[in-house]
């Protein structure tokens, strides 16, 4: 009977462990599935807001228009139709609220019953018009021509250089500046954090005595526990003005400020992992090196560092992983201007900052919402790639040993 209970308890615990494992993996798979399902939807949509149409005069030779041109037309950067391959008429912009400039309230009607007819007549009478209005005011026998807008293409999304997700009539969804901004800031962060982190971990594992070490290690690990918004605020108040003065820049919110803040945030990861790796160097190897007459410093860079190189690399890569996904701190210090950065001393916008700042206000299920999920997918793939590299690097070590 006792053994039965024992066996039963064992089976029960085993089952529980398996269950929690399954639940965790299932959750991850579900989240990834959800992310990609929403994200891929962006390529199924037109950049013009749902329920709206863009129409022109029927004599206008244009049938189709590119999203970028629509934006430039409505920003009055393109003012004549011949610039986009039409007649030499000058462009007349029309939005729904402009209707009162053309027609009286009586013609439009109290409940807008006459509105559809008014728009139809207006588009017919002005050869240079481009009209942007809700589809429900599209008259049954509309006398103008409704322009066709292509769905968002892969190249437009990935190679586009303008990020105006809420632009009307046509959203601009170029993620190039965001991807470059993310990589730029993370690269800067790792260039700053790696030498510093490596130096600190060598000091702690090889040079410092036990007392110093017992104070330093918890202190550094404490860095990891500070909320990221605190880092962000610290960056905004201290680092940003410092950069502005040092480099004599018009703005202090730059990629460099982001890199410094992220560098500090990545330090604990890098130091802890590489220090552990270095302390794992067998005592015999170090003693052999010293016995051969090598100095302490020679031993460090000829024996300890090469032996623990895979641990150091893993620390560095995990550090980048943290830097790439970090949101709040970056949001506060990089200025978030969606332009392709030419140097680290310019404002940049990163992917996580974009998602965090915009998702709350984007209409759920809309184009902007899906575009933000697509950004999430890109970020996921970047992080996945980084994690796979960690696996590869740490996996290599085991082969070396035997």
């Amino acid at each position, binding site marked *: 009977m006792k053994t039965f209970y024992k066996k039963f308890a064992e089976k029960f615990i085993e089952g529980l462990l398996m269950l929690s494992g399954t639940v965790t993996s299932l959750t991850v798979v579900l989240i990834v599935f959800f992310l990609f399902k929403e994200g891929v939807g962006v390529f199924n949509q037109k950049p013009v807001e749902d329920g709206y149409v863009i129409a022109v005069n029927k004599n206008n030779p244009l049938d189709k228009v590119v999203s970028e041109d629509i934006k430039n037309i409505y920003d009055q950067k393109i003012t004549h139709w011949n610039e986009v391959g039409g007649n030499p008429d000058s462009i007349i912009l029309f939005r729904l609220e402009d209707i009162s400039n053309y027609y009286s309230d009586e013609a439009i009607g109290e409940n807008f019953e006459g509105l559809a007819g008014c728009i139809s007549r207006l588009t017919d009478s002005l050869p240079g018009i481009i009209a942007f209005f809700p589809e429900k005011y599209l008259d049954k026998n509309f006398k103008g021509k409704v322009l066709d807008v292509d769905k968002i293409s892969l190249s437009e999304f990935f190679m586009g250089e303008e990020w105006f997700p809420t632009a009307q009539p046509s959203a601009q969804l170029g993620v190039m500046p965001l991807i470059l901004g993310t990589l730029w800031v993370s690269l800067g962060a790792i260039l700053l954090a790696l030498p510093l982190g490596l130096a600190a971990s060598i000091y702690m594992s090889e040079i410092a005595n036990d007392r110093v070490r017992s104070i330093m290690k918890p202190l550094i690990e404490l860095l990891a526990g500070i909320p990221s918004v605190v880092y962000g605020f610290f960056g*905004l108040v201290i680092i940003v003005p410092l950069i502005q003065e040092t480099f004599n820049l018009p703005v202090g919110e730059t990629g460099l400020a982001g890199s410094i803040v992220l560098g500090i945030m990545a330090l604990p990861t890098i130091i802890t992992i590489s220090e552990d790796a270095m302390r794992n160097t067998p005592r015999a190897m170090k003693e052999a090196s010293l016995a051969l007459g090598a100095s302490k410093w020679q031993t460090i860079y000829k024996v300890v560092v090469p032996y623990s190189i895979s641990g150091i690399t893993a620390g560095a890569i995990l550090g980048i992983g943290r830097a790439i996904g970090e949101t709040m701190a970056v949001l506060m210090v990089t200025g978030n201007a969606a332009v392709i950065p030419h140097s680290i001393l310019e404002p940049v916008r990163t992917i996580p900052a974009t998602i965090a700042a915009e998702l709350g206000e984007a209409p759920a*299920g809309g184009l902007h919402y899906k575009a933000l999920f697509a950004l999430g997918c890109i970020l996921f793939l970047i992080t996945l790639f980084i994690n796979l590299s960690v696996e590869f690097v740490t996996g290599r070590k085991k082969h070396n040993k035997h």
Partner: protein
Amino acid sequence: MKTKLVVLAFALYTTTAGFAQKLKGSDTVLPLAQKEAESYMKQNKAAKVTVTGGGSGVGLAALVDGTTDIAMSSRKIKMAEKMKLQDAGKSVKETTIAYDALAVVVNPSNKVSQLTREQLEGIFTGKIKNWKEVGGDDLQITVYSRETSSGTYEFFKEHVLNNKNYASTVLSMPATGAIIQSVSQTKGAIGYVGLAYVEKDVKAIKVSYDKGKTYIAPSMATAKDKTYPVIRPLYYYYLSTVEKAVKPFIDYVLSADGQKIVEEVGYVPLSK
């Protein structure tokens, strides 16, 4: 015993369901709604109002899903959101509960103290790049704006930029506090914030909407008598089916007491 419990639970459920109201949405309206809810609950002990933020888009999406009774919004409902409600067979009602005036702020060291709407448009769309073009020092202009999806961003674009897009070099900040901080420490900076946030570290400038004839400084007085032009309404949206349930709270917000709170929080009360 069991039936008693069920009855009790049912009674609890119906009483709370009768009075509980959920508000969700815009972070701009959030502090105001919270204050209103607190004092409303003080007056009506039985009532229960819970307020959560998240953004105008989140609030309106929750209205479609039916997870909130009132959506707070700092922008007008979008056509796509309206159509979604229509598809779900719901019709939405809109109430303006207060106004929010936006002040254009610059660094205190800046000589410029007044700008026309046209000049503001030039600065925010990137046509005017140096302060000397608008009568200031030879200094590059650094433009700070709110995030693309905030209601403030949209409003400023519609009313000041004449519906043109911001320049892509505009720096966007996650919060009003961050704009104040940045403008106060960057010499060539310009940005916009809610009237309630203007403080001594930044300088609010006068704005002209009649091509430079009259310049009006942003203040509670000029906002109230509507002479200050950069002012936007804040909304509550609710389904017409729950109108009866939410009406007492909305009436309270619109009452003299409620409008007094509006002014205390720093927004502009509705004029009678």
